[in-house]
């Protein structure tokens, strides 16, 4: 089924998201969590790269982390599904393995 990639750092702080996008294969999933959720903001510098990535990857964002940081779902780029921790677990089950881009 592919890999569930997790990115937990802001792409403005670290290049982990960029590395993840370089190496993630079509059919895989990307979960943005912790500070990684900042990548998913509408109007942000990563809107375009993520929209392009959405053609090949299933994109998810951990809702508790987004809410913690003051952003409602409407501020997210289109095409990113929100999940809670239960959904994170479901994704980890559904995909073959989990790869953490720290």
């Amino acid at each position, binding site marked *: 089924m592919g*890999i569930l990639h997790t990115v937990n750092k802001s792409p403005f702080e670290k290049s*982990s998201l960029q*590395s993840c996008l370089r*190496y993630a*294969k079509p059919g895989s999933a990307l979960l943005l969590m912790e500070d990684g959720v900042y990548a998913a903001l509408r109007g942000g510098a990563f809107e375009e790269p993520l929209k392009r990535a959405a053609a090949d990857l299933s994109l998810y964002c951990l809702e508790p982390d987004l809410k913690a940081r003051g952003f409602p779902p409407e501020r997210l780029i289109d095409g990113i599904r929100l999940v809670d921790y239960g959904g994170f677990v479901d994704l980890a089950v559904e995909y073959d*393995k*989990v*790869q*953490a881009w*720290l």
Partner: protein
Amino acid sequence: MEIKKFLYLNRRAPYGSGYAQESLDVVLIGAAFDQDISLLFLDDGVFQLKGGQDPADIDLKDFSPAYCALDMYDVEKLYVSGESLAARGLSGKDLLVKAEVLNDAQIRDLLDEHDVIFSF
């Protein structure tokens, strides 16, 4: 015990943090479990393999010789990202140990092929 394909993913430079050295400890201990082990050096992780490291003046331990001793533990599959090397002005000649240089597509395949990926 079943045999799984383990991939140790190294993305950090040595000395500025302790992840590189401590991740080597996992590799060495893990070698005793007869799994199928590969090491991948990506992003700043390629700096872990830079030859000629000399941390004496910062009073840190030079643990880089351990990379050369990995084959004694039957850990022989070392892979390095060509893109990460080039972006940092490095080439295969800079490395202290023989490692296969992979392009991006090969790295994607490598990640796919392994059962378990350790990140540090």
